[in-house]
């Protein structure tokens, strides 16, 4: 039996605030295997981003166990286990696109001689070849987000954690980036954790959809997608797709009424 890449057992997280404790995550159990594309979907406050931040070691659970590659999230981070993509591209305006992608390489101490190879490779992956010398403001929002994905890929982490990366983009750009993300995933065989609040996006991208609900943040349903790995955009009109989307919606509604 293969060991899961990310393994959560009974994960609890309570924030102490001035208004008393807030139960952000309650008894979260989840296994993510190598090469999975897992979406976390749910209304705001359901803990989907918090759970992703726990995996990244940006928050520390107050209960349960959480391992990444068999290590604690802290250790996993130090071993460069994952790249993280935020909702905003957050590129440094004073650096070119190449300079931005170089940032993690500098900080992680990659030898200077290897920088060019890494940067060229990820620029190809996100289809930004030829834009390396541009500054962020010279690129569209979608291109900036692609550059930020390239930055997260630059240091060859096996896991890619994405927190609503396309949430701020318009639908047309979003469709295109979703399609490209699937291609990138197929080409790199990465394990992807993807937070979204869009049902079509979750169904279109994922091999596994985790439906969450708020107060306290918990998992209400885990759906294994039956869609084939090769997914053209018009798969969203297929019966299969609509069936899965329906189940997600049911899961969300059930969590909401509870």
């Amino acid at each position, binding site marked *: 039996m293969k060991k899961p890449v990310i393994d959560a057992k009974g994960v609890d997280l309570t924030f102490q605030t001035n208004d008393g404790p807030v139960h952000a995550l309650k008894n979260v159990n989840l296994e993510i295997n190598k090469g999975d594309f897992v979406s976390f979907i749910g209304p705001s406050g359901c803990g989907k981003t918090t759970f992703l931040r726990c995996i990244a070691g940006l928050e520390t659970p107050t209960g349960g166990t959480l391992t990444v590659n068999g290590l604690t999230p802290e250790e996993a981070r130090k071993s460069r286990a994952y790249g993280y993509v935020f909702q905003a591209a957050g590129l440094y305006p004073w650096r070119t696109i190449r300079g931005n992608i170089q940032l993690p390489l500098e900080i992680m101490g990659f030898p200077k001689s290897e920088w060019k190879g890494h940067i060229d490779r990820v620029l190809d992956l996100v289809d930004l070849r030829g834009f390396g010398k541009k500054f*962020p403001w010279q690129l569209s929002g979608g291109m900036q987000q692609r550059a930020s994905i390239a930055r997260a890929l630059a240091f060859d982490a096996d896991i890619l954690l994405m927190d609503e990366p396309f949430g701020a983009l318009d639908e047309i750009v979003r469709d295109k980036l979703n399609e490209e993300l699937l291609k990138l995933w197929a080409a790199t065989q990465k394990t992807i954790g993807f937070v979204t609040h869009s049902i079509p996006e979750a169904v279109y991208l994922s091999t596994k959809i985790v439906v969450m609900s708020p107060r306290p943040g918990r998992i209400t349903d885990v759906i294994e997608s039956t869609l084939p790995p090769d997914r053209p955009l018009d798969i969203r009109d297929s019966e299969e797709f609509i069936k899965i989307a329906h189940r997600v919606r049911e899961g969300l509604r059930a969590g909401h009424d509870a």
Partner: protein
Amino acid sequence: MKNILPIVTIVLALIVIWYGAAFKMNSTWTYDQAARAGTEVTFSDLLRDTMQQSRPLLPAPHQIASELWNTTVEKKITSKRSMVYQGMITLKTTLLGFVFGIVIGVALATVIVLSRVGRLTLMPWAIISQTIPIVALAPIIVVLSNAVGTGTLMVPKAIIAAYLSFYPVLVSMVKGLTSPDQMQLDLLRTYGARQSDVFWKLRLPSSMPYFFASLKVAVAASFVGAVVAELSTSAISGLGARMLIGSQFGEPMIMWAALFAAAILAGLLIFLVGSFEKAARHLMGGRAL
């Protein structure tokens, strides 16, 4: 070029008002003189006289212009009567104080941002320092720096200029160094970045727009500090000292020419800092404004 028109209009209006005021204020003296000599003053006499008195209450613009011309272009710059010579002294004080001010401001801001203790202890003192009138402090600074044996007046004058100019740099840099948002800090955390990486690669570059904005204020403050220092340390050279000499010896022309020389120099400094800011913004990938 469109921007020039309103500026020129305002300047012309000011000059007209100035001539009017000079005519009115200087006419008292003309009437006095005429009364003593027992002569009548015609309007054209009055007009001629108020525009060319040697010690007018308010010199007319052309008089100041010609005094400025005489004391800059016509005089050798080694002459003590040359505004260029005096201006260079003030400029030297200003720049020295400006550099001190930047170094102190940036250093204090760094300590304040990086350490909680620094934040709690230094910031209140920085604020208090600006509530003390610099004119009151100036003599103390002179005496103290003489006591430690700095020799010239340049050091205390530069300290006074720095005292005024460090503050805008400090306030802007604290704001600039804390400008990166949580997401930016989280991103660096995911890379396992050290505190030094966060400072050099994120905080410091993020603070640059704030830094350059503060430089314009700081250079003006430093200049004011330099002039005030010259006025209040009984200095005998520099534009501030010229103003004082002009007023004490009843030489309004010297006073006004020094004042205008100071204004021109200050404008030049701000223009230079502005150009520097523009060049730096370009280097840091900013879009042209």
